[in-house]
């Protein structure tokens, strides 16, 4: 665990920046800070989505069910809020629990499938879960029309002492902190995976499952653990987003685009790393927002061009590009096999 220190330091640095950000934004931008906070929450949401998806990818399994677990968490929050009187804050852990349990069930039967077969099974699961939610009694899950979800925070407006925009600021600031906390939790889980023996198991299973098993790794167990962790985290995100957006609806909450963003972002940033998906989420959010402001219409075309170009020219994402540049500047980089060969 000695090597974990830099990770802990940069996570801590990120946490401090996050803690100060709302105050600094408000001081610097006044009313405009309201939308900046909202953008920051969107970026962190993409980061959580991407990094949680990457956890399973590290075992070599490509899941197309991330939208399903996101939706399961969101619906768990909505049903909890509408059917019971328990405090809404419990919706967060509940969303994670429901998604984690679903992953345990789905993973037990599908994780023996490899590559494209697992991907298709998880894609089918997303559609099935959406259909099931739609067919549930309307009184429980709202059918095709969905449900309203109460907000996690209700701003306190003090007339005379506050300006009207500060209501929105207060609300966005509160959500900003919860997103930051969930992001830090996701990063912490990722760092634990990367800095303990789990990394050896996940990487071995990804590169050669049969050989990993001969060396004592239990591939089924490693993949199931990754799947449950990955899904529980995105389930919590789904619950949080449901509260921030105020409603859930089958077509939107289980939208396949959620899965697409979950896998495109780590590919863009750098797969199988903690930094890659986070970096990818930050850069892609900034690119998207800039394009949106420049071309109100058709900005998605520009977004697509950026993605295609980056996948063509940065096969290992932003993190891979950075490593390549550093090696080139530092000369030889890693020792070549020839250097270390020595007498046989």
């Amino acid at each position: 665990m000695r090597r974990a220190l830099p990770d802990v330091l940069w996570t801590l640095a990120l946490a401090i920046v996050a803690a100060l950000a709302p105050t600094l934004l408000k001081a610097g931008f006044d009313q405009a800070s309201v939308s900046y906070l909202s953008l920051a929450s969107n970026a962190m949401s993409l980061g959580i989505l991407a990094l949680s998806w990457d956890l399973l990818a590290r075992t070599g399994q490509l899941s197309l069910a991330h939208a399903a677990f996101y939706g399961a968490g969101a619906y768990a929050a909505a049903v909890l809020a509408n059917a019971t009187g328990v405090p809404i804050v419990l919706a967060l852990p509940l969303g994670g629990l429901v998604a984690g349990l679903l992953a345990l069930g789905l993973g037990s039967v599908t994780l023996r499938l490899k590559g494209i077969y697992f991907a298709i099974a998880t894609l089918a699961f997303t559609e099935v879960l959406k259909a099931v939610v739609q067919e549930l009694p309307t009184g429980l899950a709202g059918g095709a029309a969905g449900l309203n979800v109460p907000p996690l925070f209700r701003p306190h407006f003090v007339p005379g002492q506050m300006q009207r925009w500060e209501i929105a600021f207060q609300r966005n600031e509160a959500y900003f902190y919860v997103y930051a906390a969930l992001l830090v939790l996701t990063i912490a889980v990722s760092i634990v995976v990367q800095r303990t023996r789990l990394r050896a198991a996940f990487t071995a299973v990804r590169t050669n499952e049969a050989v990993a098993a001969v060396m004592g790794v239990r591939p089924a167990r490693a993949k199931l653990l990754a799947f449950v962790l990955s899904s529980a985290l995105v389930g919590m995100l789904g619950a949080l987003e449901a509260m921030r957006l105020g409603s859930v609806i089958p077509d939107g909450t289980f939208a396949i685009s959620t899965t697409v963003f979950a896998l495109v972002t780590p590919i863009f940033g750098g797969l199988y790393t903690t930094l890659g998906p986070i970096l990818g989420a930050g850069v892609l959010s900034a690119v998207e927002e800039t394009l949106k402001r420049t071309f109100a219409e058709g900005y998605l075309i520009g977004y697509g061009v950026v993605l295609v170009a980056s996948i063509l020219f940065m096969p290992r994402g932003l993190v891979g590009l950075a490593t390549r540049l550093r090696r080139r500047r530092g000369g030889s980089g890693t020792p070549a096999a020839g250097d270390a060969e020595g007498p046989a």
Partner: protein
Amino acid sequence: MMLRVQGLAKRFGGLVAVSDLDFEVTEGEIFAIIGPNGAGKTTTLNMISGLLTPSAGRIELAGRDITHANSAERCHAGLGRAFQVVQPFPEMTVEENVMVGALYGAPGTSNAVARRRAADALERSGLDALRDVPAEELTLLQEKRLEIARALATAPRVLLLDEVMAGLRPAEARLAVGLVREVRDQGVTVVFIEHVMPVVRDLADRVLVMDYGRPLALGSYAEVTADARVIEAYLGRDDEEDEA
């Protein structure tokens, strides 16, 4: 008895690859399996290591029935194996490759013990200086060493070696023979398949000769190489050659 094979058989459709195979390997023994091409040596080793399911028979490791155990369970029971076709994890360094076996080979291994075991396996297989090199940059000889180091790191009681000497120069083979002896001296039982006869002579306590999937002879190197049936299996009978 460390390894016991009883009535082992393997059929591929109508083809009988191995049948009626019985043998026992005692603790600390170096046991060789030889025979002409197609004799069923590798099929036998694959059944012991779990790559193939036997059509009949039973395999015991230290008194435990492992006939139907999966790869990870066999490894935890104490079976280590080095593949004939080397398959390192290319994205990992040499040390990381070995650490996989050290961490997961024996249940309940602490990080500290695993690190020590990995360092030991690297040192014994002469990979010390290469520990931080990505496995994809190794030469074939180095990959073979890595194959053995990974198996050793799982703390095996029985080590299966499938033609690890193939492609080695005589000097390298001598080093490898020394390594296998050293491993045995630490209490590990070794079962190996080999075509290089001087290696079999130098290493094996006992030799099992297989032919057409059946045991042909079992004994010391001197005994089996003096056996008329073995000579016949390898060289053919005189009258056969006359006919040819």
